[in-house]
């Protein structure tokens, strides 16, 4: 098993943390190897930002994705920038409120991660809700491992809020169907 994931959003939205949590869930709370690379630097703030994670049950050589198995878009600009790398069998998840123009000519997963966060009263946890969605949609990491990684990666005083966002995202992901 070897899966490459790209999460695209805008700088400040927490896509790096989202990728980090998936990598940590794979390495620390499951028995996989994982690597995470990222766009880095001042030029990434505000514009399209991305996190890339490879999860594998074998040693990982080249640490950047050569093909994308799962593409997650949390901003229109990121979707527009990175959609060229989508293959026919790439699983695509978008936040339909943040990526309204998302037609690629085939059904994709459309979820509302930011809405979940807003309903919880804090837009900041959109990324964690999306981590839940990814876990529910994409059968790779156990929800338990990812939940542990979430709890381990967020400030203590926001732990409950983040766990709630994760769990609601997870439910949304489990119930989502390509449309």
């Amino acid at each position, binding site marked *: 098993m070897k899966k490459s994931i790209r999460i695209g959003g805008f700088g400040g939205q927490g896509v790096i943390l989202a990728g980090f949590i998936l990598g*940590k869930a794979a*390495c*620390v709370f499951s028995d996989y190897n*994982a690597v995470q690379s990222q766009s*880095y630097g001042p030029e990434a703030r505000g514009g399209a930002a991305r996190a890339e994670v490879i999860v594998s049950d074998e040693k*990982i*050589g*080249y640490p950047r994705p050569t093909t994308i198995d799962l593409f997650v878009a949390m901003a229109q600009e990121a979707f527009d920038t990175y959609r060229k790398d989508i293959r026919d069998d790439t699983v695509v998840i978008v936040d339909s409120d943040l990526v309204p123009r998302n037609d690629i000519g085939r059904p994709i997963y459309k979820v509302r991660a930011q809405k979940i966060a807003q309903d919880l009263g804090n837009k900041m946890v959109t990324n964690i809700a999306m981590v839940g969605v990814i876990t529910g949609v994409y059968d790779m990491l156990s929800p338990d491992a990812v939940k542990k990684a979430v709890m381990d990666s967020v400030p203590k005083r926001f732990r409950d809020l983040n766990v709630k966002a994760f769990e609601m995202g997870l439910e949304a992901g489990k119930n989502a169907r390509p449309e």
Partner: protein
Amino acid sequence: MRYERDPARIRKVLGDKVQFVQGDMAAAYGGLLAGCSFFGGYPITPASEVAEGIARMLPRVKGTFIQMEDEIGSLAAVIGAAWGGAKAMTSTSGPGFSLMMENYGYAIMTETPCVIVNVQRTGPSTGQPTLGAQGDMMQVRWGTHGDVEAIALAPSTVQECLDLTIEAFNLSEKYRHPVCLMADGEIGHLREKLVIPDEDEMTLIERVPATIDKDKFLPFGNSQTRDNKVPDFPTFGTGYRTYVTGLTHNKKGFPATDKQRDHEELITRLVTKISDDREKLTNVERVELDDAETAFVTYGASARPTESAVATARKNGMKVGMLRLKTVWPFPRRTIEELSKKVNKIIVPEMNLGQIVHSVREYSCDGCEVTLAPKVGGEMHLPDELFGYLEARK
């Protein structure tokens, strides 16, 4: 007050045994585990996270972190701390490493044990901040003036950023020499699985203090307690009078700048204390080399796409392998010579326009073709790109 390495406290600060962290942070962890109690540094991408990490951790183990005014001051502070008895380190990247060259030579000349973590980018000058490259592989060997030997290690994984930092400290203490961890921006910023070794899984080499009768003490003679070219260390404050200078000095440590014999003796010892141990210091990984007809010779981040290219080549029935240098300096001459007798072609992937390829060529036998596979601009080679070098050379 003397720093006492406290394993329990260090491990409490480091946290969980298995982590998902960046190479930069792993190097900081390695320093802490090795017993580093002093860090003097100046932030620079892609090395800043080494300083950031250790700045948070050192005070919690009763160590000292100082952000200096620049990289010249950083290494100067580290050298001073080492003479005060500390295991000391700094971190930087290309532009800062250039500034450190003066004190790097001073550390070599004064036989000061310390560790420089260089998370390389490219140049010349400020080049491409934040992006990775292998811009200083020759600077670490030849960047300071005069006759020197270098000890430089190159990690290819986050785990090796930790393991080889500990090794760098060990070698710096063993040889009383500034040892460089030549990481690069790709590995420094990569997050990967890291397993923190237990105490019984690590070997730590400690400085050999001067213990001889103070009247008979020669600060820069060979070891006076062992059969070794490395002098016992007279930590400041222990009563061993020592004059420390970058000038050519005699065994007493006093300037002997006009004495041909003193200079020859000193410099020969400084170089041969390391080069005599070249074979012992050689540390390589061999991948699929047993029946290989073509070999990649590489190091650092470049080994990652290379390993993928070797796997693709093997799937296609091509006899291709990889020799990965973990110790780049002193250069593993005999290993390269022997490899060049076995294979027809050597390809050297580097994230520069050709540095280590020159040494590979120098020590390869006639009849073995040595080719550079360069990549610049702040990106790693793609595995397919390297595979292309094989197809082109079939």
